[in-house]
């Protein structure tokens, strides 16, 4: 934990703080159907053309049911399209490597994964996906799933900010505007910057390089062979990376994801990649505060997220800096901390920070191997995902996930001040509480239930490469990541089997659409309520006390559920490591 690391942390936090307000204001204009932005002149005609071609009346509002049906219909079509593209990839253009079709289960898993903004990858990108699959099948979802997440957050914001309203906005308008005004323009500039940092953007076949020293490798069929040359990935990488980060998607172009030099070549690109993960989620707290006419509350939510973020970074960073006591005992790598699975160009701090950021948000891109983290260092990503990725969180998903905790906190604290709980003037009644706890309950059941199944079934155990608590953490991580729509992995698990592909798909679908359905139901219910005036007797939803309350709500309601599994996995592993046993 060296001085310049602290400096970088401050720089990161400072930049995030600076981005929040301007981007938040911009987002507010975007999710307002007739909002004004400085890009109106350029994008406006395109936007109107899209509406005309698709027969959308941008100002016609939808109720919660219609909004939900639109979202689901759109998702279903996207799912089918992507599944088809992947399943029959070899018949499609832009496949210079001649990569074969994906198996049914892998194609389904991948289509679900990108549809749900998870970007869990049971495959290695460069050895599986053609350029067409990457650019059309996957990247399109990177944009639309991010836009859909923001759209759902927008409905909840509208529900809270409108009085006695039966409608929540128009899904198609939200989808189009967020994609056209936010994601596309930023990504164009961002991708150019990444090209400047050295990321390829081309359609060339993969390069081949002669190895300086031939290597003997053993394949899965137990045959050894000598390798003399290396295939080097090419393709439209920069454009993929931009949206992968900005849309908190996280699906890598290459298997090594952001650890690959072509995906994340420099410390500067690393810095901006982390920043772009948090940018929209952080800005949405400002948009939220603005639209509910309580900017202090927006900042309070920001502060609560920030507190949890910093706590996670510090624990993870410290654990990784402390390193592995067994290595130290043997006299290797005493001062370096735990560098296993990390890139030297990022080092301990930037790997720990990246791991925290990517799991706080529902990104899932990795610039180091989480599987190789120390047990406590690996606990932080697990914790972040299990609490629902609400620490800034996924684009849109982070905000609406966090608001579940905020509403529950308001409910309990509201009683504590002696009134029927009110949140931003909306009475919190049994329906709202029911939606919130149903989401938490079903997600917890999904993570724990599927992990339990995997932990005792032959299909589940077949994928394990490590035994004991570490193997347990790998399974737990996979389901936590998929239910949370994160997509990062404790890579030790061999997940490309039909059983894992289908159960993980189930986890991703529940984690995304069950939650969205309930959020929309709650948004509609809240929107129909009156807005009550506040008084000295009303619970104040800003300030330090309320920040503590949100943090407490996440830790007590969200994390208590996972204490036993976290103990059985990382914590036990930590103590065993201290005692000299590794897995």
């Amino acid at each position, binding site marked *: 934990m060296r001085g310049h690391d602290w400096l970088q942390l401050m720089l990161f936090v400072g930049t995030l703080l600076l981005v929040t307000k301007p981007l938040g204001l911009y987002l507010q204009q975007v999710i307002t159907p007739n909002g004004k932005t400085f890009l109106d002149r350029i994008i406006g005609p395109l936007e109107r053309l899209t509406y005309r071609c698709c027969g959308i009346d941008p100002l016609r509002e939808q109720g919660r049911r219609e909004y939900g049906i639109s979202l689901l219909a759109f998702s279903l079509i996207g799912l089918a399209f992507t599944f088809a593209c992947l399943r029959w990839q070899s018949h499609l253009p832009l496949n210079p490597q001649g990569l074969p079709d994906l198996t049914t289960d892998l194609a389904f898993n991948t289509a679900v994964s990108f549809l749900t903004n998870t970007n869990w990858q049971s495959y290695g990108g460069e050895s599986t996906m053609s350029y067409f699959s990457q650019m059309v099948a996957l990247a399109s979802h990177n944009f639309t799933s991010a836009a859909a997440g923001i759209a759902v957050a927008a409905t909840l914001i509208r529900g809270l900010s409108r009085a006695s309203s039966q409608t929540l906005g128009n899904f198609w308008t939200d989808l189009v505007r967020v994609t056209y005004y936010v994601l596309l323009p930023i990504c164009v500039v961002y991708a150019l910057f990444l090209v400047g940092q050295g990321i390829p953007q081309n359609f060339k076949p993969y390069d081949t390089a002669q190895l300086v020293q031939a290597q003997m490798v053993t394949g899965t069929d137990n045959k050894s062979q000598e390798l003399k040359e290396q295939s080097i990935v090419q393709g439209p990488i920069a454009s993929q990376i931009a949206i992968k980060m900005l849309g908190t998607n996280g699906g890598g172009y290459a298997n090594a994801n952001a650890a690959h030099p072509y995906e994340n070549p420099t410390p500067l690109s690393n810095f901006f990649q982390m920043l772009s993960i948090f940018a929209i989620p952080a800005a949405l707290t400002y948009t939220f505060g603005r639209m509910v006419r309580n900017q202090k509350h927006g900042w309070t939510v920001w502060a609560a997220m920030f507190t949890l973020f910093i706590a996670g970074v510090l624990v993870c960073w410290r654990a990784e800096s402390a390193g592995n006591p067994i290595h130290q005992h043997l006299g290797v790598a005493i001062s370096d901390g735990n560098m296993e699975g990390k890139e030297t160009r990022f080092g301990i701090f930037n790997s720990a920070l990246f791991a925290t950021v990517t799991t706080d948000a529902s990104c899932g891109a990795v610039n180091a191997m989480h599987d190789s983290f120390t047990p406590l260092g690996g606990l932080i990503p697990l914790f972040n995902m299990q609490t629902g990725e609400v620490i800034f969180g996924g684009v849109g998903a982070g905000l609406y996930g966090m608001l579940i905790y905020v509403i529950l906190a308001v409910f*309990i604290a509201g*009683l504590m001040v*002696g*009134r029927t709980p009110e949140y931003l003037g909306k009475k919190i009644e*049994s329906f709202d*509480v029911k939606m919130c706890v149903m989401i938490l309950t079903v997600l917890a059941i999904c993570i724990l239930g599927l992990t339990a199944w995997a932990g005792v079934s032959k299909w589940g155990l077949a994928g394990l490469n490590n035994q004991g608590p570490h193997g*347990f953490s790998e399974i737990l991580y996979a389901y936590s990541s998929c239910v949370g729509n994160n997509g990062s992995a404790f890579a030790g698990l061999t997940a490309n089997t039909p059983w894992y592909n289908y159960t993980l798909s189930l986890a991703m679908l529940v984690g995304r659409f069950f939650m969205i359905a309930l959020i929309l139901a709650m948004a509609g219910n809240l929107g129909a309520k009156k807005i009550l005036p506040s008084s000295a007797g009303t619970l104040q939803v800003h300030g330090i006390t309320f920040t503590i309350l949100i943090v407490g709500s996440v830790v007590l309601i969200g994390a208590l559920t996972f204490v036993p*599994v976290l103990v059985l996995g990382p914590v036990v592993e930590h*103590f065993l490591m201290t*005692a000299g046993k590794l897995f």
Partner: protein
Amino acid sequence: MKKTVTLLDPAILKTAVLESLIKLDPRRQFKNPVMFVTLIGTILCAVELFRPQHDLGYILQVTLWLLFTVLFANFAESMAEGRGKAQADSLRHSRQKISARKKVANGDLTTVDAAQLRKNDVIVVGAGELIAGDGEVVNGAATVDESAITGESAPVIREAGGDRSAVTGGTRVLSDEITVRITADPGEGFLDRMISLVEGARRQKTPNEIALTILLSALTLIFLVVIITLKFFGVYGSVAFSTVTLVALLVCLIPTTIGGLLSAIGIAGMDRLLQRNVLAMSGRAVEAAGDVDVILLDKTGTITLGNRQAAEFIPARGVDMQELAAASQLASLADETPEGRSIVVLAKQFGLRGMDMGDLQGAVFIPFSAQTRMSGADISGRQYRKGSAPAISDFIGGRIPNDVQAAVDRISRSGGTPLVVAANSKAMGVIYLKDVIKQGLVERFARLRAMGIRSVMITGDNPLTAAAIAKEAGLDDFLAEAKPEDKLALIRKEQQGGRLVAMIGDGTNDAPALAQADVGVAMNTGTQAAKEAGNMVDLDSNPTKLLEIIEIGKQLLITRGSLTTFSIANDVAKYFAIIPAMLVGVFPAIAPLNIMQLHSPQSAILSAVIFNAIIIILLIPLALRGVKFVPMGASLILRRNLLIYGFGGIIAPFLGIKLIDLVVTALGLA
């Protein structure tokens, strides 16, 4: 008669112990998911007892403490019910075994038991007799001793027609005879309704209670899944978790503390209202009281004493104070109204000898009349009059002098009532009649304001007077020159703005407003119509009772929220007690996780279970009395309760479990 029930009333305790056993019936427990799961867990542990086990003593102890957890929760509920019943019984007792003279079809009277009276029966009650049931006076007037209900010893007048026609069963007629029409069947009076709310037969969950139950049920379900999957994780890790240990962890994690006390808290809120002689028609009304944003109060009788009093004499130019006082006294001698008497009292302070009408020979007294709008006396050729400025102006046949008019205007502006005094054709000066604000009100309204509640005064006075009184009493707003329909309109307006309105009223013309208000408190002395329209009845007929009702409503919600926070926060320590105990056998390396240094795995689990059970008993007094409520802003209340019940809820079980572990170890129980 002040009805207070001590916390440890032996009779209540005895019934409560019995009741808590009866309530073990699973059909009853099923209504409370948290305790139902606990009961099932207890049964699972009890089953383990019949398998060959080597640590039978440990399993037996855990099973018993789990059973106690359920029993303690039942006990809390029974205690609250018992106290409520005791409270209600003392009210009900008075009306049993009363006989009544009932009017039958041909007009004759027959003697029947009170229990046989039905709605719309007509009874006649004479001096010295008890009134057999709630009803309305249809004929006659009588003084009635209502001390059995209100504790107020001064008799009150009940008469047919008007706003003082309602009588309550169990009160005694002191003089005269009245004819009463019974307005409720036996068992359906206000008191009976209240008793049934306390006893649970008709008790329904309030909206907040339902929402909270959903939250608690969900937490229970989540922890159920945590425990069931833990069994599988044990299989993966080759750790065999015993059923007893898993059940112990489950029961410790689910919110048994609030789950066990939830209904007791609700009932206790009703009890506290009863203690203050308020009958609530539903639990919902009590809860709504906590949410009130605006209260409407009648000026007369609530904010001010019923009548104005003379506060000052202001002599006209050239008239000395002595002269004015004497003239005022003479003009008021015949005035028997409280205002008139207060003038005489004030005059005495100027050294005038007390006078009686008999003292003055040949004096002619002129009483107040609507035509002249003044009163006075003609004594030895001099005509003394007092009245409103325009009336006196007519009397003296000319303009009132400027200085007197100025005084009149000044008094009007400051909310008082000016009376001009004249002797023959000369205006002598002005009497300042002032509304007298009841004592202690200013502080009460300040407390309300701290809670964010606006108080609005309703008065028939002109806006000037109303503003002055509102200012003096510390009210936030007023409605002047109010007609009954204005009240209703005001309530509707506030409700449209999303505010909850409480009001207190007695008259028939208050009934629509009482029905419209979210919390409508009818005075017991009020009309039947008012009582039917409101959702609470104040037996003491004390208009400022509204403030206490609001505080009880708030206290009820605060107690629920605080104990929920406490219950959830407790889980942290329980994890630290039980999880290391469960795993240390297989992974000795995790011993440092046992930060409480509990003696052994068994003592750790047992201690956590004991703590979990005992905390319910320890919190019963808090649940019954309610969390201390200090009127202040929401932010301060939150900070305070978060510190005590949130932070305290994390710390307390660490200490408690450690302490119990020491005892358990010392006694060799595990």
